[in-house]
């Protein structure tokens, strides 16, 4: 499973199921073998192998990146239901691929923006771009901004990024290349960007690397109350918590 989102307003958990082409929503306090509250799955959904998702609990929408498109469903969708809109087409610059692919989404409900992490190229030769759209963008729409280039240090995505809308920040786990025997990416780090950034800009902040503590960075979550970033590392098989007051 490559994504999990907590909806703090409705106290729900959302996960994509790539093997079953589904989006599941659980109670926030779900435990044990508890069935989901809702399942989005079926021929109308256009879901293929959903690997990541984003939730906009303010505007009640679920965003699912799929290949070269982003599908949008009402939050309370249940069953075999078509998306209410899709962002797709050559002008979107949404790319394909797995490692460096489109597969990550974040919603800034304050600024009404959608951030899509999209790959250019593949694997260790690929790099990442952060495409920023209007939250309601649909069809073949150009991004408002595109953070991309060598100064950005956006190489390969480690895992799902997260947004911190109160400060307008995009917090991205970046793993770099797998440089050690197919297993370690010692250039892993967290890069922080401003949601108003555009073009080839340096990150505002880098944390934990490159050549720091990480060996294969994956996901990141925000604990704003304690001014912490919670970051997973697949090679360390660990979850690490950093105190980052500068971010908050």
């Amino acid at each position, binding site marked *: 499973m490559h994504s999990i989102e907590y909806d703090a307003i409705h106290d729900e958990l959302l996960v994509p199921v790539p*093997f079953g082409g589904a989006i599941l929503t659980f109670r926030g306090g779900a435990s044990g073998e508890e069935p989901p509250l809702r399942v989005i799955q079926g021929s109308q959904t256009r879901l293929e192998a959903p690997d990541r998702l984003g939730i906009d609990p303010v505007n009640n929408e679920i965003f699912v990146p799929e290949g070269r498109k982003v599908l949008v469903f009402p939050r309370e969708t249940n069953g075999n239901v078509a998306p209410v809109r899709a962002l797709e087409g050559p002008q979107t610059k949404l790319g394909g691929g797995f490692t460096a692919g489109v597969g990550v989404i974040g919603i800034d409900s304050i600024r009404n923006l959608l951030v899509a992490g999209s790959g250019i190229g593949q694997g260790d030769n690929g790099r990442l771009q952060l495409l920023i759209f209007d939250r309601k963008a649909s069809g073949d729409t150009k991004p408002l901004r595109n953070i991309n280039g060598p100064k950005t240090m956006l190489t390969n995505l480690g895992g799902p990024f997260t947004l911190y809308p109160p400060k307008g920040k995009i917090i991205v786990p970046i793993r770099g290349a797998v440089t050690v025997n197919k297993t370690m990416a010692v250039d892993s780090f967290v890069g922080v960007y401003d949601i108003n950034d555009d073009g080839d*800009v340096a990150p505002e*902040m880098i944390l934990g690397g490159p050549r720091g503590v990480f060996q294969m960075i*994956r996901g990141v979550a925000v604990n704003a109350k304690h001014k*912490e970033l*919670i970051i997973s590392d697949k090679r360390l098989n660990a979850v690490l918590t*950093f105190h980052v007051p500068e971010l908050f």
Partner: protein
Amino acid sequence: MGISMQDRVKTSGPRRGRWTGALGVICAICGLLLLGVHSTTRELLSAGKYAGSDPTTAVRLVSAEPFAEMEGEACLWEPASASAALSSSLMQGAAASPVALRRTLDFSARKPIRTIRDPYSAFSAVAIDHKNNEVILADENLFQIAVYDRLANTPANAKMTEPKRLIAGDKTHIEFQCGVYVDPKTGDIYAVNNDTVDDMVIFSREAKGNVPPDRSLHTPHGTFGIAVHEEREELFLTVQHDNAIVVYRKYAVEEEAPIRLIQGDRTLLADPHGIAIDTTSKLIYVTNYGATKSFEQVRPARGSAAQPTWPLQDAAPGTGRFYPPSINVYRLEDSGDVAPVRVITGPKTKINWATGLAIDKDRNELLVANDMGDEILVFNLDASGDAAPVRMMKGPKTLLKNPTGLYLDEVNNEFWVTNFGNRTATVYKRGADGDTAPLRLIRSGPIDSVPMLGNPHPVAYDTKREQILVPN
């Protein structure tokens, strides 16, 4: 960037100490420098008030609290050029380009204040080397293959049993190995990776430490179970991600393509895991978790993946579906989109994310590691449909906890189980039933310390319960 001083510096209350206050001011100034050029003049003045440096305001610093202790640096000292860049940008006002002048805050050396990590082995799969009387265990937590004496038994008062030897380290390409097989003739160890490295690695019996595999085979992504037909010299792998079974020559290496492929809607393969083959009846048994989808006829253009025996990987839109967990049975020589000869599934079967399988021909039984049920289910080999198990092992004496790997030792009349949930490999008498204690066990750590954190990828934070959510 925001300023955290509001949380730390109070504007009233008793004086707490000159140096503490001074430290707060220094850190406030440092924090201001670290704000970078995104800070506005208004933010700076506001921050200055909190730091007690603005004589025009009635607010003044009377006390401060230090930052929480941490291993890494909280407040990096920037060179003088940093403040020059900041003041320069402020003086230039609207004409300045904040992004162009940005100085990245470099916290690359910062250390975490907390780490959640399981320090002990989590055994996922098991095989026996009869020639050398050794048991081989795959460890998905510490990324290693551990070799023990077959008769090793961890005493209750011992922390763990040390293996005779380990194969581990970045040169081995071992990470999330979930299946192992031992060549009965040579003692070669075959180890299957379920996630990060799309290679099956093969080590000689002498391999030890951080050594490269003696050979390796590029496989589809997400292989899980392994079974080998020694007479035919064929190697069978399940492919979780592609709902497929691939069959290779036993000695296939590098980019050699599979010789057969079972994949397609008619197969009813749905997130397949464990695999066992019955060479007498010429059948393949495969456990399925149940999630599945259809695939489009699109193939990668290079390497072994371009061959027609490589599984299709692109999902067809809107085809996702969930089947009940099952055990599907195929003919040994099946190929393509073939229906199973029978399926064991339904509520009476109790199958719930079953993984490892073993075939006991002498007893005409199929042993199943039922992960979610903390139990071993035993079916007749010819069971079909919603068939109840003929017996099952379950209960506190068994020490079964999230069993994933199974191995039937016909030579010594025992069977082995790897318990992913309590860091043990347990051994039982062949034919054991009910709540039976193991004959022996190998434990890699305290049985009741169970972080069970493995293969973490995404994380989320539950603000209501103040909990970290980590799918494994």
